[in-house]
């Protein structure tokens, strides 16, 4: 199970690392490794796989939202584990057209290498978005609109999204299976109970569910797992000229943070000492007290 663990180190996008990761052996010789007893990452992984399989068993038309970032890459990796190598539903990239060039390169390459059924959906022009939102939030809200378009186009009843509770206070309140209204809205005041890994998976006709298989992971968990499994990453996450991106969004509303971390190990050490929130570089989180919450209620991730 953990073959890729061997000295994988924190090399992000060095060609060698990429080749190693992408040519992951399909089938190896019978049982070379006795599975170790479960550690923290094993537990997170097992829980996420359970959630992904529940989603696949209980919904009719699923898609996985691939934002190209570290979290959704881990999510794709988990889906490949859950379904023994290949993701059995489309990966949907709602494209604002304003991502970094490195992100598009990553998408084009790994969309193929991971044999994803990749669907790329554009977002509407900025004029179509609520003009009362602050500028960055308005820009991000384009993505919500793009998502609604894609939902209408394909009729998905479940969207798998890589949000985490530790990212942001409103996300901490999320359910694993989170019902959305007909307009894609999130009624945070009337969330159904969810316990013992039993999920509410019956969205009303025309509505859809958000499924959050890595809700219980932390930023450090994502990096530790990325390293252990040798999952390729976009090099923007690693320090260059004293700065790196902790979180990747649209080019015009995402800023790098001061950092010298140039490997995953160094990122983990850095995270261990920091008290700066992960989304500090995301402009839209800081415009007003409630801008992010308004976005989420309207259907933003």
């Amino acid at each position, binding site marked *: 199970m953990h073959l890729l663990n061997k000295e994988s180190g924190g090399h992000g996008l060095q060609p060698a690392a990429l080749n190693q990761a992408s040519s992951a052996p399909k089938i190896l010789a019978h049982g*070379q490794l006795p*599975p170790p007893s479960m550690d923290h990452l094993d537990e997170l992984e097992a829980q996420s796989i*359970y959630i992904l*399989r529940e989603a696949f068993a209980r919904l009719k038309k699923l898609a996985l939202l691939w934002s190209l970032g570290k979290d959704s890459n881990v999510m794709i990796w988990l889906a490949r584990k*859950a*379904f023994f*190598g290949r993701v059995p539903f489309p990966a949907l990239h709602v494209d604002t057209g304003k991502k970094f060039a490195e992100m598009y390169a990553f998408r084009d390459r790994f969309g193929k290498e991971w044999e994803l059924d990749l669907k790329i959906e554009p977002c509407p022009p900025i004029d179509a978005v609520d003009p009362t939102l602050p500028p960055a939030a308005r820009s991000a809200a384009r993505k919500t609109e793009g998502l609604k378009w894609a939902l209408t186009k394909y009729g998905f009843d479940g969207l798998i999204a890589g949000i985490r509770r*530790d990212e942001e206070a409103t996300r901490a309140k999320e359910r694993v299976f989170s019902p959305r209204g007909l307009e894609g809205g999130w009624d945070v005041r009337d*969330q159904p109970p969810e316990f013992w890994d039993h999920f509410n998976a019956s969205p009303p006709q025309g509505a859809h569910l958000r499924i959050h298989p890595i809700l219980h992971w932390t930023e450090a968990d994502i990096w530790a797992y990325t390293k252990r499994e040798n999952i390729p990453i976009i090099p923007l996450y690693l320090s260059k000229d004293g700065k790196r991106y902790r979180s990747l969004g649209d080019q015009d509303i995402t800023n790098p943070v001061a950092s010298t971390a140039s490997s995953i190990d160094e990122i983990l050490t850095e995270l261990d000492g920091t008290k700066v929130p992960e989304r500090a570089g995301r402009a839209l989180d800081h415009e007003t007290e409630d801008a992010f*919450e308004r976005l989420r209620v309207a259907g933003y991730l």
Partner: protein
Amino acid sequence: MNMILPSSVLATPNGTTRPQIRIVIVGHVDHGKSTLVGRLLHETGSLPEGKLEMLKAVSARRGMPFEWSFLLDALQTERDQGITIDTTQIRFRTRSRDVVLIDAPGHAEFLRNMITGASQADGAVLIIDALEGVRDQTRRHGYLLHLLGIKQVAVVVNKMDRVDFSADRFKEISDEISSHLTGLGVTPSAVIPISARDGDGVAERTPRISWYQGPSVVEALDALEPARPLEQLALRLPVQAIYKFDDRRIVAGRIESGSLSAGDEIVIMPAGKIAKIKTVESWPVTPVNGSHGAGRSVGITLDRELFIERGDVIAHAGATPRDTRRIRARIFWLHDKPLAKGEQILIRLGTRESRAHVVAIEKAIDPGELSNEETKSIARNHVGEIDISLAQPVAADPYQDNPRTGRLVIEVNGRIAGGGLVLSVDAGQRAVPIDIVPVESALRPEERSARYRHNGAVIWLTGLPGSGKSTLARALERRLFGNGGSPILLDGDTLRAGLNGDLGFSAQDRTENIRRLAEVATHLARNGHIAIVAAVSPSADDRAAARRIADAAFREIYVATPAEICESRDPKGHYAKARAGTLQSFTGIGNDYQPPTQSELRIDTSSGSVADATDTIERMLAETGVLFDELVDLAANI
């Protein structure tokens, strides 16, 4: 305070080897849960930089005094109302572990959210206002912790500053809550006097509570144990799905308890099918050796093709869950509409879902009041014990035997409406509708066997069409009757003309046909008769089901006449019609007959006479205790 270390001291930067414990904070609304969480974050140095200052600024802007609870009440709606609506999770570290604090709402309105939060916890902190004392929601939350199976509970008595840090007041509350919790089977690990606002008792014992000798809140949290994996219990692997993405047929699920390895003999419940684990599949490395324990999400392949579906539970032979259609459960109810006797519901137990109805309701109470016992319905936010009759058999354990497979949720209109613990299951019994009262026979079984000189039995003749089942059955019937016994022939085709006239030849209908045959035959056997069933019964699973129904009375005889001889006999002309294409779904010329592997007897009628075959059967019946030994002697006297 001294429990907290600067994070740079930590040996493992990513926390992967540090134990993680999840703790829920519950209690009556306004007793100070969010304040305690805010204070804990501050005391453990876990606040994001600038957060405290930001919130103080927000408070000032709104003209309100700063409250620790603002840290958590991140949603606009919550700030407006001043109460926690939904669960929030906050992380911090102590010396020995990572702690995830789950702040659950105390307002009765949001009990469903309290349960959502608390169900994820390894331990709980129950908070009580020193001034107000134990309130209805305190009791309710205590009761729900018990129902959620949370055994580790620390109690904090908050707002001690409001009662001048009175040791007497503290003892009064401590005694009351301790006796309430102990009565529920939950022994509090500590009862701690604190002032969350001022910090007393949270990270250290201040002079104002010098009379208190127990642990601080941080110390008490450090003493709670992470949930133990359930590897010591018997294997339970609820099936999530069967995947056929390539030439492998992978049975996927998460091991809820116990462990498994390739080569294990397993039983698939509730049907009781037996197989062996061929491989444990994984990705990117596959297959994998060794033992896989509780908590793992796995995929296995089996050594034989069996019908297996989502909801089945895989267990080891000899340690299986019960199969049942009747469950007694202690539940909490969250739906607006009370749960009433007779109501149709949907049950989820593991990955199985089944329609069900509520046969009876007992001991319904408001756990906040603990009085006014109801027996007609369970109101919202109340608890009670119910008897459930399921539309199909399910595999279940009582929760004392297995906490994971001994709990269920109830769904109404596609939304989770309640949940609870399985108190007991009626093993292997059919659900008896409440208004049916089975009348027992006036005769005792011994009276009949004394007359017939045999015990009741089900003789099940299986084999291809034309193999000689009916001929043998008739000869056996004649022989037993001639010996003074009471044989009754149940021929598959004959019953299809009447009792089973509504059934066709689909797999489902065949299964139902066999079930009815088995039920009728078993009824006759229980009343001392020997029921002789002659039926092709091609499915091994269906025959296994028949054996389970008849249990010890079942004797299977495989009429193993070679297929070409059967076809050449063709007594009913079916082979000819099937070859001509005018008879669909005919067992015989396809490969759909699954021969028995462990029948009591195997007879090939292509060699030997009918009389010889009948002798052989009679001998088997005598050897296996159906016919009384002295039968032979009796016959000699005639």
